[in-house]
């Protein structure tokens, strides 16, 4: 059940009606949201509901064990045990096939005849996200950053809440669990939520879907058929597509959570305007980058143990961030590129700081960062490492051919996506203010009209969100 579908609209109407009927009964509302979230998840594959429930049980029991023990060694052992269960599940579902395939290829190279069985494991939707939720909760309880959750219903909702269940944002336990202890003090921001949902719909249905079908998919499917200009514009197109796709999901998740009375953290903040790679990661998939920083980079030592170890920690963190996205050498290459880039940037910081004083310096910094990120997207998007290498080779040499795939329509969408990175910071507030002046029925009518327009502008059918597969 994808967000931009009539099926989801029907589902959300039922949830909204039940939330309105339950009025002040907060515990009943939480129970309703748990049932709705499991129903939502079961639409893909009901069997994986048991996996989600097991993951929740591990987090719940692990938290109680950690909080119930005063012996530091036992606490650490409980934490390690529960985190190991989470990571084993993630490792099995996400990496079993990759490890088997790589081991068999290695055995073949070494001339060994024995092969490991290949079982084609089905990846449960959102497993990375609920695993990260579980690990975040356990670590926060261990560190004392969040009170242990003693109500099973709260843990069930924290792990399964439908707006973020399958593609984030990753919501920290210390951020979400306190919201479950008492009804929201802040009332529902209707206009802001509607605008986030409508903006997300437009980005996904119109910009991301057309860029994928008109430019990115055909060019990346066979880069040898295209010349340098098409290849370059297809990378720009993918940069805009993945931003519009993923930030759309996050915006809609934030808007829907707000409509049922909960707050989510921001996940994107105009990332392609970043002047540093480090700044890019403060603006892109913020919930993942801060998760990696707090639960991986800092425990590794962060920047506290000298320059070389800082570079090592950056590289290790980004490599693991790359592997988190999927099993494959291309994701390792993507992670290594970003880790290496962050380390080099840190080493050059004094020089870069001086260069960024002028307007030209800042503009060139933006261009360099954007193109570096685009270089990473080639590995990220290509079918595999070999296709990425071919793509880069053609990009370097194939400039005699003209434009075939990058026609005016996709180019206009790319320009739109890049221009959106520079929208003034108070634009959203002004739009909320304008919409909020209308009565509720006016806001609803306008939203219906906007959805109908987006539906007419977009291509037939809706492709799944890119981050569903992670």
């Amino acid at each position, binding site marked *: 059940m994808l967000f931009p*579908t009539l099926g989801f609209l029907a589902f959300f109407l039922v949830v909204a009606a039940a939330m309105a009927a339950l009025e002040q009964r907060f515990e009943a509302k939480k129970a309703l949201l748990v049932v709705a979230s499991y129903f939502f998840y079961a639409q893909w594959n009901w069997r994986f509901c048991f996996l989600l429930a097991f993951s929740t049980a591990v987090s719940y029991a692990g938290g109680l064990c950690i909080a119930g023990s005063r012996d530091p060694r036992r606490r650490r052992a409980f934490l390690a045990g529960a985190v190991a269960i989470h990571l084993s599940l993630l490792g099995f579902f996400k990496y079993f096939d990759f490890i088997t395939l790589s081991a068999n290829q290695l055995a073949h190279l070494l001339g060994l005849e024995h092969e490991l069985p290949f079982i084609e494991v089905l990846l449960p939707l959102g497993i990375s996200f609920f695993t990260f939720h579980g690990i975040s909760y356990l670590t926060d309880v261990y560190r004392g950053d969040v009170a242990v959750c003693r109500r099973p219903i709260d843990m069930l909702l924290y792990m399964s809440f439908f707006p973020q269940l399958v593609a984030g944002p990753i919501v920290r336990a210390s951020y979400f669990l306190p919201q479950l202890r008492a009804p929201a003090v*802040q009332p529902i921001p209707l206009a*802001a939520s509607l605008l986030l949902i409508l903006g997300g719909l437009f980005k996904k249905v119109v910009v991301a879907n057309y860029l994928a079908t008109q430019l990115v998919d055909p060019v990346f499917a066979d880069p040898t058929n295209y010349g340098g200009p098409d290849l370059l514009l297809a990378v720009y197109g993918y940069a805009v597509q993945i931003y519009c796709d993923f930030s759309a999901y996050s915006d809609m998740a934030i808007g829907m959570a707000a409509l049922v009375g909960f707050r989510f953290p921001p996940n994107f*903040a105009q990332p392609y305007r970043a002047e540093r790679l480090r700044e890019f990661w403060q603006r892109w998939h913020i919930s993942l980058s801060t998760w990696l920083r707090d639960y991986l980079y800092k425990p590794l030592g962060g920047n506290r143990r000298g320059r070389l170890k800082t570079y090592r920690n950056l590289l290790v963190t980004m490599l693991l961030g790359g592997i988190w996205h999927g099993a494959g050498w291309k994701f390792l290459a993507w992670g290594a590129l970003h880790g290496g880039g962050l380390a080099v940037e840190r080493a050059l910081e004094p020089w870069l700081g001086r260069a960024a004083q002028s307007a030209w310096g800042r503009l060139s910094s933006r261009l360099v960062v954007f193109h570096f990120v685009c270089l990473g997207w080639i590995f990220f998007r290509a079918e595999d490492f070999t296709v990425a290498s071919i793509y880069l080779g053609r990009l370097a040499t194939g400039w005699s051919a003209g434009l075939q795939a990058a026609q*005016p329509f996709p180019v206009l969408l790319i320009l739109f996506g890049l221009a959106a990175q520079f929208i003034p910071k108070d634009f959203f507030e002004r739009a*909320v203010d304008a919409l909020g002046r209308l009565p*509720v029925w006016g806001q*609803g*009518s306008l939203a219906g009209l906007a959805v*109908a327009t987006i539906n007419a502008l977009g291509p037939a059918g809706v492709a799944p969100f890119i981050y569903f597969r992670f």
Partner: protein
Amino acid sequence: MVALGRESREPAPPTVGADGIRAAARGRSASPRQVLLACLIGAFVLSLLAAADLPTWAGRLADSPMTPLLRAAAYRWEKATTRLGLAAPQTSLRRAVRRFKHYEWP
């Protein structure tokens, strides 16, 4: 001075713990009933203007005792909105997008 000038123009990256909807953007608040009302009205407007998609959606529903009724209702609703001319804006918009999609560089 440079830093201050830059601070006022450039939106800074959000910090951990920040809300996806900033306090300044929360606007006027609504109750769950008002949220339901807005959603219902929005869905009604959508069903008037985009009724052409309803039969396809209903056709994909899993079989149940209710499904034939829903499919027939979706079909009748689509016919009714088309008769009233409500499908025309969406059809024109789709045609315009299709034309623009096929523009090529001179």
